[in-house]
């Protein structure tokens, strides 16, 4: 896949996941749905760091640090809505 097509695929996935976030919220307000919404947010953060920021080519430490940022935040926010 060319670099431009990969970027377009990332963008399409980000847009679809953003719509998915809103649809999930309209289904209801349970803990499980909150968990799903936070998981979608982590997925979007991963698409931005790996796709747009090209961390897939970066040293492992930077990848882990950047991906951990969204993951740790989502886990802490998730615990707060338990």
């Amino acid at each position, binding site marked *: 896949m060319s670099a*431009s097509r990969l970027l377009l695929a990332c963008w399409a996935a980000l847009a679809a996941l953003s719509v998915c976030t809103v649809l999930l919220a309209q289904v209801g307000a349970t803990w499980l749905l*909150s968990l799903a919404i*936070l998981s979608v947010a982590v997925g979007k953060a991963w698409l*931005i760091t790996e796709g*747009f920021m090209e961390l897939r080519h970066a040293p492992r430490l930077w990848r882990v640090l950047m991906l951990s940022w*969204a993951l740790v935040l989502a886990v802490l926010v998730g615990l707060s809505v338990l």
Partner: protein
Amino acid sequence: MWFFILAELSVFAILILTFAVTQVLKPQMFSESRLLLNTSTGLAMTLSLITAGLFAALAQEQVRRSQPRHGAVFLLLALLAASLYVVLKVTEYRHLLASGLGMEHNTFFTLYWILTGFHFLHVLLGMFILGWLAARCRRGLYGADNHSGFESGVLYWHMVDLIWVVLFPLVYVLN
């Protein structure tokens, strides 16, 4: 640049966690106040920011192919998409202020204004950087062998996107 980005992300992490912890202390207030925000507007802001991110990344591809003028066009498209975010955000701010939902209305809105306002300032700075990069691209100052400064500027914009994708569900959606 990566150290700077990590420092920025740490500051936002503190603000986001403050919002989440306060939500635990005042769940009803946060739930009721969140209903006063328009989720569709939040979604439109998200789409405009990620679209700007796409155009910025495509601009980077053009610069790597030594086509900086094509890159400048993509950067202008990125600025256009980012401008939509600015219009939506300013409209939302004006609507909230007209409804008496300013910073002092309650704790939710205090944190809402701090968190989104701080992010908004980053968006404006990001737009300034994209505009500056576009001007330099037009003059042909970037190319396949000279684009590290360009990449740093584009990375800053992606950081702004990254922060928003976590902010959006927390502020507008989660209940």
